[in-house]
């Protein structure tokens, strides 16, 4: 039994992993809420509508004793935990719409979401799902939408900045776990952008009042003391539906990113692509990995091939937003068990949040049976000066077996990379790559790619 450190903020429950299961222990202060959930069947209805992750009440008395609790909930386990700063624009947009739709659904049943943290949404392949059942609470007529500010910071503002100003939010969000504030968003938008009614009402006005009343005590604000002016249900729903309409129409900035067209416009031929495809197919068919990691997944070509050949789940990583968007749309259109995520391998997601245990880093979440890293290694070894030894150790720590493509100095891409800089990589040779890999793994096979000097190494970690 291990407590999941990220669940500490909720005094009414704590989440545990127990024998590969996810169990939510309800504390005494949450008992009343859970009784209400059971009598109203709100959890069942939310699950049925696919808003909430599969959740059920556990009746196992022994387990209750073990957890010292009157109520236990069990949740379906998520294949790979991801965070909003790893989602691309389309994913964050889908997550925002999911949150709003769920809250609208709940309010119509006289419940509501108590907050609006984006971390309460996870992706199962290409679909967002709400995971924190205890964030549901009774709706009292006249109550405010308490999650409004959080919704703006964690969903709306990053989307607005990307859409209106081409500001990529991922690294900013990673640095500030609360998202992007209204005040910061307003500093970037121009006058015309601020005049959009939804932006004006949800971002500009709150930022103005926040600035204006910074030094005032909330109790001194006359407007807030008048009980008759509470938000009624219709106005609450209007706020949610207005935001829903705005977000459903928002689109990513039109900027073309470098890698977006990589699958149609790259330095190797269709013939070489076919060879690589065959190598990946063979590897997947042989190993049948349940969870596969595709490093530098680009538009998701090889991820799709892997799924079609027997891999259950693929998580793809890339740092290019255009490629990630294409990947996500591929996953959605073809309904693949494929989750593409943003990762700057040079500075991967690390342990952040309270006590540095609230949100886990990339390596801490890796539970892959296998990985593929095609045309990836040289972007770290050459472009980022990562020593081969360190790089190979990192690859091997991700999964016990995999494919790594080695791109030598004689290759066109590496030649271009070295054209305007000093070659400070005397040890960057296939020989040293092989020697280092051999120290940590068994090399199962070295695949050649015709008409290039690139090679794909198949390794298996020495256990």
């Amino acid at each position, binding site marked *: 039994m291990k407590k999941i450190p990220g669940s500490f903020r909720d005094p009414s429950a704590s989440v545990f992993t127990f024998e590969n299961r996810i169990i939510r222990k309800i504390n005494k202060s949450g008992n009343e809420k859970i009784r209400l959930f059971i009598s109203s069947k709100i959890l069942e209805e939310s699950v049925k509508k696919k808003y909430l992750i599969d959740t059920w009440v556990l009746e196992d008395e022994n387990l209750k004793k073990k957890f010292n609790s009157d109520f236990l909930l069990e949740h379906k386990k998520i294949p790979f935990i991801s965070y909003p700063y790893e989602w691309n624009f389309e994913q964050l947009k889908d997550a925002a719409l999911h949150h709003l739709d769920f809250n609208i659904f709940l309010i119509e049943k006289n419940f509501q979401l108590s907050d609006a943290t984006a971390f309460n949404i996870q992706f199962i392949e290409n679909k967002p799902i709400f995971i924190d059942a205890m964030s549901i609470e009774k709706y009292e007529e006249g109550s405010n939408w*308490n999650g*409004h500010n959080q919704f703006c910071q964690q969903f709306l503002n990053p989307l607005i900045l990307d859409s209106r100003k081409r500001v990529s939010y991922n690294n900013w969000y990673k640095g500030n776990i609360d998202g992007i504030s*209204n005040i910061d968003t307003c500093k970037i938008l121009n006058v015309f952008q601020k005049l959009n009614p939804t932006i004006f009402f949800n971002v500009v006005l*709150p930022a103005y*009042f926040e600035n204006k009343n910074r030094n005032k005590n909330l109790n001194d604000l006359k407007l807030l003391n*008048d009980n008759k*002016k509470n938000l009624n249900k219709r*106005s609450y729903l209007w706020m949610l539906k207005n935001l829903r309409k705005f977000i459903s129409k928002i689109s990513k900035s039109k900027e073309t990113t470098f890698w977006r067209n990589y699958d149609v416009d790259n330095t190797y031929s269709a013939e070489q692509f076919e060879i690589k495809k065959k190598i990946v197919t063979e590897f997947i068919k042989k190993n049948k990995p349940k969870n596969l990691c595709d490093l530098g997944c680009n538009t998701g070509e090889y991820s799709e091939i892997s799924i079609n050949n027997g891999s259950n789940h693929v998580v793809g990583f890339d740092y290019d937003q255009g490629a990630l968007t294409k990947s996500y749309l591929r996953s959605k259109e073809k309904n693949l068990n494929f989750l593409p995520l943003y990762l700057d391998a040079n500075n991967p997601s690390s342990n952040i949040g309270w006590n540095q245990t609230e949100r886990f880093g990339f390596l801490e979440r890796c539970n892959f049976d296998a990985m593929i890293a095609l045309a990836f290694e040289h972007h770290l070894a050459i472009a980022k000066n990562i020593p081969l030894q360190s790089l190979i150790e990192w690859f091997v720590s991700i999964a016990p077996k995999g494919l790594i493509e080695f791109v030598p100095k004689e290759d066109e891409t590496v030649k271009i990379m070295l054209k305007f800089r000093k070659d400070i990589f005397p040890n960057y040779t296939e020989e040293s790559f092989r020697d280092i890999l051999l120290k940590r793994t068994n090399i199962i096979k070295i695949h050649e790619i015709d008409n290039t000097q690139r090679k794909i190494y198949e390794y298996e970690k020495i256990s």
Partner: protein
Amino acid sequence: MKKALLFVFVYFLFVSSDAYAYLDPGTGSIIIQAILGAVAAFFTSIAIYWEKVKNFFKKISKKNKDNKNL
């Protein structure tokens, strides 16, 4: 002194814990919702008065009709 410290500790332990501990609602956000509430209330009262005005004219026209029928 010890008693005072104990009081402060107990106060925060019990009194501050029922606030929305994991949520910062944001002053601006609360204010715009209060404004929205006020605007909604304003339109609701207008609607009520409008209803009253409509009823008043309806009554008059009904009276007129009744008079004509007599």
